[in-house]
């Protein structure tokens, strides 16, 4: 019986093409994930925050393979709080809808490092 398989495989192909053309990071499945939980996709969120200066390499979580774990740990909570502060969101440290929506939006590729407290604990931000 060829037809059903053929139809199915076409559908799958369409679906893959659709997903790959979509917005870059869709973190919507991480909304309301709690600290301490282990959820697939948290590592991608850490990579995103690392890319823009919120998570360091030596975050204790950065395995030698260059990958992050899927554990929502305290460091990630702090990184989210900093992100929320810098992007003018309510600082909760949680993955609330407004935070996740903003992370899923296109943005400038310049890191936010210059908005973050530097080693001497001095803000490089002029308010």
């Amino acid at each position, binding site marked *: 019986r060829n037809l059903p398989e053929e139809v199915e495989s076409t559908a799958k192909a369409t679906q893959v093409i659709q997903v790959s*053309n979509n917005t*870059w990071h869709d973190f919507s499945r991480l909304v309301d994930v709690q600290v301490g939980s282990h959820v697939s996709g948290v590592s991608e969120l850490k990579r995103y925050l690392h890319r823009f200066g919120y998570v360091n390499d030596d975050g204790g979580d950065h395995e030698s393979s260059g990958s992050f774990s899927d554990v929502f740990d305290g460091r990630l909570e702090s990184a989210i709080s900093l992100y929320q502060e*810098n992007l003018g969101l309510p600082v909760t440290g949680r993955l609330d809808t407004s935070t996740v929506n903003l992370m899923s939006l*296109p943005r*400038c*590729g310049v890191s*936010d490092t*210059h908005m973050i407290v*530097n080693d001497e604990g001095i803000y490089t931000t002029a308010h």
Partner: protein
Amino acid sequence: YTYFNGKPKWNRDTLTYAISKTHKLDYLTSEDVKTVFRRAFSQWASVIPVSFEEIDDFTAADLKIGFYTGDHGDGLPFDGVLGTLAHAFAPGNGRLHLDASETWVVADDFKGSSDVAVDLESVATHEIGHLLGLGHSSQESAVMYPSLRPRTKKVDLTVDDVAGVLKLYGPNPKLRLDSLTQSEDSIRNS
């Protein structure tokens, strides 16, 4: 508003810029792109005592603009449709790279454009802020805010953008504060 570490700035009152003839888009004419960047540069030139001169010699220009895809050799690879749209480097470096994978729009409206259309003038105005030494802003209305929704135009400098760049370069003698979208005294205060 914020600055890059060390608050780098240009120390010349005229900066030249060139748009790459090789790293370009096939669906926009070079005149389209030049018109957009002329408007974007004039936004900043109306505020600070710096003028921007368009030249043809890409190598000689202070500011070098081009469209690139994926890994383009500066250690900051682009990532396809949406995601990171562009990046620019601090004063002294002068490079401004736009992701050629995006669907760039130069028209004043988004009629007939795709869901993932990105306004070129909005991104150009933001990245020129970086070329001048501004970092990102925490104010969502500011041009220097890091995120931009698709099919959205944000080209008018706000008080936050102007206060930040004035602190670096001082005012253009012809600057009229009332032309800004927010009140004049909030500028004076900041």
